[in-house]
């Protein structure tokens, strides 16, 4: 570290980037997919038709279902459908002795008939969403790990900026077909040009779990009473207790309309009904997150469920809460319309590419030194295998997830679990493959397999359902068609990448370009 500030930062950037790069690649890719999780779920449940959204009817239908199936529950939750997510969800928490938490039971309903939805069980796009911050680990370890990864990402970003000496001079520089130089140019380009997004997404991911990872100030200021802190932040969650006397719950739809009037026609996200059968039932109507950029966690209107009396309208957010809400809202992108959502997606892919190119460069630089000896030390071989499995391997796993959705029978009871298991089994197999095959061959084979799997998705869709491209385009079902077309496009891209690798490896490398161009991954 005696070499100087920039060099020290370069060292930190390189090592932080390598150690956490594989994990961060997976987080970024699945997180990017999550921007279209509604659309992914729609493709994975082709039986669910998209209806026109009618809040009043959805609420009435949900209330009827809950009154029939969960009249004695402690709490009801109703999640209303919106233009991207046509599902009406109901959830209830069993009543149980005080002090113990009752079970939560969730069902999806058809918003028109009020019957339970008959569609194949699947996690859909939610799988990618949950994976990117829970990492398939038990609570709360996954969240801790992903937040630690976010902090390392933050360090890597800032040290990267410090290290990039000619950040302004090289702002527009991208020189293709020049080996390592091109990879570095590409890494810098997707890094610097999309920097606002990268900084936002990284810092916001720290903010999202900040009460979990940085609780010192809560504990210090509230003498350890974290419940008091959350009640002060979100007064709407401080609900009146049950009085033990039975009461009749009013129809909820008019209450919803009253709440919307408070928000100048804003949209309702969900309702929570506490102690529905009690005389002291309370109804909390929460605003949809997609209404505004700055997410207002507490934006709720509360009513007494029996009398319809307006109990409380949540106040305007304070500045610190608005700042936190901005980070949350910007990260989630709920407010984004279709065009902006695609831009979010592209930015996410750029971030994924930034990480991927970094991993390739790390290895490439060191392989240059060992190309002459012909022997690769264990550490480099390890990085090579992990690069393969975490990048092309992950892409194959994602494709297999979609294939499993179409191939597993719709009535198979554990199909949701098996879809997820297929994902991980495939990923594990790619790791094995990477260990057994030589580097260049392995890349070509995995990229090729990924290409075939993705390109064949529209065909698979046509063979297994009646919602193939011809039908979905004619109906204007853009989610379904868009999914098929994006898979096709991704497959074509992977095929091109595989072809490039094959083509280059056929050419004998010269001494100066010690490593043939290995174009892979998301670099454009």
């Amino acid at each position: 570290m005696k070499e100087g500030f920039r060099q020290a930062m370069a060292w930190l950037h390189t090592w932080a980037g390598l150690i956490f790069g594989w994990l961060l690649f997976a987080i970024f890719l699945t997180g990017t997919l999550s921007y279209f999780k509604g659309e992914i779920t729609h493709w994975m449940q082709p039986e669910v038709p998209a209806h026109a959204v009618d809040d009043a009817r959805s609420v009435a239908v949900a209330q009827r279902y809950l009154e029939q199936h969960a009249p004695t529950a402690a709490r009801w939750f109703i999640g209303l459908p919106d233009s991207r997510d046509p599902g009406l969800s109901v959830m209830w928490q069993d009543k149980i002795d005080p002090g113990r938490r009752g079970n939560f039971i969730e069902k999806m309903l058809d918003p028109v008939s009020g019957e339970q939805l008959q569609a194949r069980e699947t996690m859909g796009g939610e799988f990618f969403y949950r994976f990117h911050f829970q990492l398939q680990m038990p609570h709360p370890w996954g969240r801790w790990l992903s937040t630690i990864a976010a902090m390392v990402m933050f360090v890597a970003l800032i040290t990267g900026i410090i290290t990039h000496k000619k950040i302004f001079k090289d702002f527009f520089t991208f020189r293709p077909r020049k080996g390592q130089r091109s990879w570095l140019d590409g890494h810098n380009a997707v890094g610097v040009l999309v920097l606002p997004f990268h900084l936002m997404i990284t810092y916001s991911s720290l903010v999202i779990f900040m009460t979990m990872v940085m609780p010192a100030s809560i504990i210090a200021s509230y003498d350890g009473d974290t419940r008091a802190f959350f009640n002060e932040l979100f007064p709407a969650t401080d609900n009146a207790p049950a009085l033990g006397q039975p009461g009749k719950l009013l129809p909820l739809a008019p209450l919803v309309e009253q709440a919307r009037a408070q928000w100048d026609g804003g949209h309702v996200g969900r309702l929570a009904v506490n102690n529905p059968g009690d005389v002291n039932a309370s109804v909390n109507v929460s605003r949809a997150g997609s209404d505004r950029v700055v997410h207002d966690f507490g934006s709720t209107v509360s009513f007494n469920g029996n009398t319809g009396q307006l109990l409380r309208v949540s106040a305007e957010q304070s500045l610190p809460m608005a700042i936190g809400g901005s980070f949350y809202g910007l990260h989630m992108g709920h407010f984004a319309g279709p065009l902006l959502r695609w831009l979010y997606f592209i930015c996410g892919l750029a971030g994924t590419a930034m990480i991927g190119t970094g991993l390739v460069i790390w290895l490439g630089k060191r392989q240059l030194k060992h190309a002459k000896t012909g022997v690769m030390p264990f550490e480099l071989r390890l990085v090579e295998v992990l690069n393969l499995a975490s990048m092309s391997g992950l892409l194959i796993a994602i494709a297999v997830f979609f294939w499993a959705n179409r191939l597993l029978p719709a009535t198979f009871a554990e199909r949701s679990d098996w879809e997820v298991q297929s994902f991980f089994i495939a990923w594990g197999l790619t790791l094995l493959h990477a260990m057994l095959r030589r580097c260049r061959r392995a890349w070509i084979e995995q990229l090729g397999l990924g290409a075939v799997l993705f390109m064949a998705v529209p065909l698979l869709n046509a063979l297994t359902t009646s919602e193939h491209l011809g039908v979905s385009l004619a109906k204007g079902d853009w989610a379904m068609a868009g999914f098929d077309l994006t898979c096709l496009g991704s497959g074509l891209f992977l095929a091109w990448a595989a072809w490039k690798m094959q083509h280059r490896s056929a050419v004998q490398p010269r001494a100066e370009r010690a490593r043939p161009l290995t174009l892979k991954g998301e670099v454009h």
Partner: protein
Amino acid sequence: MKSKASLPLSYRLGVTSRLLAAVVGGYVLASLASVCLSFWLPLSRADAVVSGMLSSFVFYLLAVIWCFACRSAARAWFGVLVPCAILATLAGLAYWMGRP
């Protein structure tokens, strides 16, 4: 990173020491900074706590950068622990002032 045959032990120990200072010391620094801010900011209690948490990560970043930019591992620890002591003192001051 040079791929020499092997790196001297003192180098490896130095890096480990800096790493500990950055990861553990930095976390303590960030936490103390958030506590200090939550006590001293002239906002409501909940808002001050939120502001403290929001800014804590910047302190963590600065600590990490310091630990690897400074000239020795000893300086790294010094540069983290001294601010920790100062912040702890300020926080303690506010705490005792606030409790009648």
